[in-house]
C-alpha cells in the first residue's frame, strides 16, 4: 500500500512526512523525524511517557495514528527550551526539585504538566495530581514531580 503525506507543525515548525497506513505518531516522531523525547514505553496508552500535545491537548503518541495529526500542531518535550537554548520553567523546576531520577517518564510528565499550566496557570495540588494521573513514574514517588510543577506555576506567577 502507498504511503500517505502528513503535513503538520512540530514544535512550531512546518513538517511534511510520508507515513505508512497504521503508523503511530510515536513511530513518526522517533523513527522518521528523530525526535526521541517522547519515549516508547508500554505502547498501550498506559504509562504516559509518550505524552505530547496536539493542538494544546495532551495525547498519547503511541496510540495516536500519524495520519490523525494532519494539519495540526504537535508539541514535544524537545520543543520546550526557547530558541536561545534556555530551559522551560518546568524543566528548570524539575532539575531544581530533583523531580527526575531515571528520566524515562520525564518528557511525558513535562508535557502533561505543560498542558495543565496552559489551561490553568494557577493549579491546585489536586489539579496537578489529576493532570499527571495518566503518567507513571517508578522512581520518585511522584511528590517531587508534583512539587516541581507547582513551583513552575509559582515561578510563572512571579515572572
Amino acid at each position, binding site marked *: *500500500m502507498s504511503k500517505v503525506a502528513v503535513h503538520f507543525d512540530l514544535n512550531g515548525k512546518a513538517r511534511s512526512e510520508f507515513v505508512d*497506513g497504521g503508523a*503511530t505518531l510515536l513511530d513518526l516522531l522517533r523513527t522518521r523525524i528523530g525526535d526521541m523525547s517522547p519515549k516508547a514505553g508500554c505502547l498501550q496508552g498506559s504509562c504516559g511517557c509518550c505524552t505530547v500535545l496536539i493542538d494544546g491537548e495532551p495525547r498519547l503518541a*503511541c496510540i495516536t495514528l500519524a495520519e490523525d495529526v494532519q494539519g495540526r500542531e504537535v508539541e514535544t518535550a524537545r520543543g520546550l527550551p526557547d530558541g536561545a537554548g534556555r530551559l522551560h520553567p518546568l524543566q528548570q523546576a524539575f532539575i531544581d526539585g530533583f523531580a527526575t531520577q531515571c528520566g524515562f517518564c520525564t518528557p511525558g510528565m513535562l508535557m*502533561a504538566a505543560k498542558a495543565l499550566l496552559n489551561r490553568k496557570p494557577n493549579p491546585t495540588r489536586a489539579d496537578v495530581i*489529576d493532570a*499527571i*494521573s*495518566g503518567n507513571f513514574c517508578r522512581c520518585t514517588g511522584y511528590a517531587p514531580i508534583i512539587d516541581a510543577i507547582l513551583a513552575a506555576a509559582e515561578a510563572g506567577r512571579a515572572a
Partner: protein
Amino acid sequence: MTLRYLRYADVADAASGAARPGARILGGGTLLVRDINMGDVSFDTLIRIEDPATTAIDNVPGGAISLGGGVTMARVVSEPALAWLAPAALSVGGPAVRAMATVAGNLHAPAPYGDFATALLALDAKVVLHDETALIDLPIQDFLAHRRALHARHPIRAVRFHAPPGHSFRFRKVSRTRVKGLAVMTLAIVLPTDADGLIRGARIACGALAETPVRIVGAEAALEGRSLTPDSIEAAIAASVGEINPVDDAIASAWYRRAVFPVHLRRMLAGDAA
C-alpha cells in the same frame, strides 16, 4: 503491517465501509491502536467516522440527551449540563486517554474497561447505530448482549438517555489505585423515588463483573416500592447473589470480585463515601 485508513463523512457510508472484510471501526484508538501495536493482524482496514452528528451533544425532543458516538470523555467532563455524569467520564484513564476515548469506543470496550458504558446501562440508554441498511435504536442491554457477534461493524451514531431526576444517579469505580486504576468493578445506580420517597424503577448496573456490563435485576426488584433502609439494602444484596459472573484477570480474581461485590453494593446503596 501497513493498514488502509478510510475516512467517511457520513455514518451510512461508514457502515458500508465497515462491512468490508478486514475492516474495523476506529474510535479514539485507545484500544484498537493498542491492538495494532501488540501485533493484531486480524484486520487490515481502519474506518474513521467524521460525520458531525457523531460528535454532537444535543437535547432531543422528549427531554432526552443525545451524546454522539465520537464524543470524548474529556468533552463529557467539560460539559456543564452533564456535570452529574462527569464522575463516570473521569473514571476513564488519565487526561490524555480521556481526550481520546469515545462514547462508542467505551461501549465496545471489554472488561475490565467500559466504565462509561456501565453508567449508560444504568441510565437505560438507547444506542443509535447504523446496521447494514438503516439507523436503528437499540436498548443498550440488547446492544451489549450482541455487540461482538452482531454490532462490531455497525457505526454508533449516538446514545440517548434521560437525565435521572435529582440526585438519583450514583457512580463508583472500585480499583486498586485511586487514579487511573483498572476496575475491580464499576457500579452505576439510578434510584428514582416517588412522592412518598419510595423507590420506583431502580436500575443497578455493574461493570467488570461479567464480559459486558450487566444489570442486577434481582436487586432492583428487591428495592421496588421500598425506601432505602438497612433491611431493604440487605434484601437487595441477597437478591443479587447469582446475578454476577465475574472474570479472572490481572486486576482481580473472580473469587475476589464475587467476595467484595456485596460490600461495595451495600456502601453504594447506603450512600457511604468511597
